[in-house]
């Protein structure tokens, strides 16, 4: 028996807040996706949530995301129909009929992409994803850690450009080839990843992440309403840890090869007065150094939050003078194995540091 739960518009408002926190600076603000969903709900569309455990082993699931530089999305403004076209292209290409739509990454705007596709296509959203956060590259997923088949992949853009990557030998190749397409599209492409069976989703994907993002967002929104500390509210629903409080004193950004890379410096306040924190990013916050010593790194989630509102601040919008609290949240177990760390540990981002979790071993 399949038990589908209605996702309310209030859930989506919370999802937008929680998913941006889980986005660890990347994935783009979910705001534009949220606006699209408000529009769709106003027109009578509705979306339902399905638990991965309710999938039959031979069901097919579409994993969707926008790939590219988040700042491009801020200018091109997400069109809710584009992601549905990526799913449609994959169905046309493979002959598969998808049972449901799942997020590639729950972090940032990509958390809402499956809802937009689901609304237009009339399928449920699967309550799971492949990252439990946001990551910049195709091989940085739980299914890549599990060595599942990386192809085919469909890409579309709003101008009518469509391409399918039919086959590649490895996830790294998928990253390289699809990235080239993405850059040519203008550093943003709506994609449907390699179709996954119900069995694969149950074995390798990270369950319950849509529900988790909604819960984090609901806690922050409730704290805002009650004028309570929103950071405390997050830590009351998630086993996280405060890393730093401070103020932004420098931001260096460069858009290269379809990524936004750079580094932000914070000067400490409160217990951290007199110290400084540097956080490097590749779309997402990757490594944090306090006075030169690494204190947190991928795959632990590094979340830079507005101290007053508790909402996330993205790497593409962070700017001088903002007052922030940096927290760490634990990652999914699949990334803590030696194989997992090969995909998403600090060395996967070219930092020659041994992974050490904020949360002990």
């Amino acid at each position: 028996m399949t038990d589908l739960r209605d996702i309310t518009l209030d859930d989506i408002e919370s999802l937008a807040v929680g998913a941006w926190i889980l986005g660890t600076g990347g994935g783009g603000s979910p705001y534009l996706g949220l606006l699209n969903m408000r529009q769709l709900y106003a027109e009578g569309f509705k979306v339902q949530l399905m638990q991965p455990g309710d999938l039959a082993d031979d069901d097919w699931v579409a994993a969707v995301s926008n790939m590219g530089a988040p700042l491009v999305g801020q200018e091109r403004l997400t069109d809710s129909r584009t992601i549905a076209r990526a799913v449609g292209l994959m169905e046309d290409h493979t002959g598969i009929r998808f049972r449901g739509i799942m997020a590639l990454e729950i972090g940032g705007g990509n958390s809402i992409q499956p809802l937009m596709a689901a609304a237009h296509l009339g399928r449920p959203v699967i309550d799971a994803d492949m990252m439990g956060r946001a990551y910049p590259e195709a091989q940085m997923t739980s299914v890549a850690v599990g060595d599942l088949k990386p192809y085919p992949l469909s890409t579309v853009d709003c101008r009518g450009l469509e391409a399918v990557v039919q086959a590649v030998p490895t996830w790294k190749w998928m990253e390289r080839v699809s990235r080239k397409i993405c850059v040519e599209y203008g550093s943003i492409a709506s994609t449907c990843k390699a179709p996954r069976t119900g069995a694969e989703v149950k074995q390798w994907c990270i369950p319950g992440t849509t529900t988790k993002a909604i819960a984090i967002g609901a806690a922050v929104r409730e704290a805002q309403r009650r004028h309570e500390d929103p950071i405390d509210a997050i830590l009351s629903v998630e086993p996280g840890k405060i890393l730093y409080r401070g103020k932004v004193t420098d931001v260096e950004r460069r858009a290269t090869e379809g990524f936004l890379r750079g580094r932000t410096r914070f000067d400490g306040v409160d217990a951290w007065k007199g110290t400084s924190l540097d956080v490097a990013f590749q779309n997402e916050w990757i490594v944090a150094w306090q006075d030169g010593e690494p204190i947190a790194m991928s795959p632990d989630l590094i979340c830079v939050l507005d101290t007053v509102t508790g909402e996330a601040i993205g790497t593409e919008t962070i700017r001088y003078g903002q007052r922030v609290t940096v927290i760490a949240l634990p990652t999914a177990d699949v990334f803590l194995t030696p194989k997992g760390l090969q995909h998403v540990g600090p060395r996967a981002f070219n930092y020659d540091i041994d992974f050490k979790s904020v949360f002990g071993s």
Partner: protein
Amino acid sequence: MRRIGIDVGGTNTDAVLIEDGKVAGAVKAPTSEDVTGGILEALAKLGASGALKARRIDAVMIGTTHFINAVVQRRHLSKVAALRLGLPSGATLPPFCDWPKDLAELVRGAVYMVEGGHEYDGRPFMPLDREAVAAAAREMKAKGLTAVAISSVFSPLDPSHEKEAAEIVARENPGAVITCSSDLGRIGLLERENAGLLNAALTDLARDTIAAFEKAIADSGIAAPLFITQNDGTVAEAHQAMRLPVYSFASGATNSMRGAAYLSGLDDAMVADVGGTTTDIGQLKNGFPREANSVVQVGGVRTLFRMPDLFSFGLGGGSHVSLDPLSIGPLSVGYRLLKDGIAFGGGQLTTSDVAIAAGQLSIGDKAKVAHLDAATTARVFAEAKRMVEEALDRMKTESGDVPVIAVGGGAFLIPDVIEGASRVIRVEHGDCANAVGAAIAQVSGECDQIFRELSRNDAIAAAQRIAADNAVAAGADRATISTIETEDMPIAYLPGNSLRVRVRVVGSVAANTAAAA
């Protein structure tokens, strides 16, 4: 240095003369419907005090809440034609899509989306559809829409499509007043477009208002350059300010907070500025207002302005009072207080009437409000206290009591003891804090250009030198200059490591240089 600072609020027009760092005169006059009359009256009063005699005035600096009040109160706004260059992207999120419904209905004259815009690296996204722009412009003309806001995908990186579309619109729809989003700034199309739409809605009001300012100054016989104060505590030359009224949106609040710091000598405190219609609560840090992080809502519209972090609520000297059930504001008689208030022979009960009845204000005719007994006035004051305490609590960033500086013409509504405040400070000329803040506004200098073959640090340093030179040329004291904004964007498609750098610096007005500037 002799400067006149004027604050044109919804209720009062205040004027002060600052001479050698001291307040040499401060007066108030009711704001008139035509704006000019109030300024004339205030300047006449200032002249009558003898303060204006003998030496010349170096500058007149006006701050006004006129533009933001127009948005908040949904008044005097022009219908705007929105023209976005960016199809086929963003079609499901058209201009005005995240505006409050009532404001959108008031301002949305027409929406046009056509092909155009750029990529993140400067390549064209789509060729500009000139025919569609011209057709849109002809339709605007047919509909009688002259306020036009043009936005384009990635225009902060390459404004050429916006500029070309503006030329086409000007040709097809002569008399159009055009706001290009690239003049307002930042990456984030929706927020930048929103700022452009608000600006376009205000351009008619800005033209009339600034013309009224100029007339009043000229009619007063003062021959000094006119400056309009900006959101960040600096000033812009009047004609430049007229084109971009959104930049002077929050200047009233910034001025009153900087004025409060100047008058009290306190650099760290909360400021409660009670005007005729609203109270603004903000926090002073090192003498400057604490800025809002990233997204700022103006009248419910999302923008990316750098503005002081304020909480505004409808409590002011002109606020309507209902007794059964008890409520204060948000409606206000505003500048009609001296006509519409009961103590002045009008028919609307206001907070000022209550204060007059309680003996806290000695204006108007106390006999006309004799029917308000002590119990009633106490109830109204208790409600005002509750509103202030709630707002103060919202704006505090740390627990514990903090000093509160009460300024503005309606400061009588702030009691001497409030929860959350270590003490309530009232300063001399506190009712003219905005005008004082305007008079001490700083001078800014900007540099926005593309640097090649330089490292990022060298390019930023070069931009800072140019911006500082510009500020000094505009009258700033070089020793006081500090950088308030630095932004750099790599432009990948240009050769030679091209970097677009935008730097903004501010400094105090140098002694004896305003005349030279």
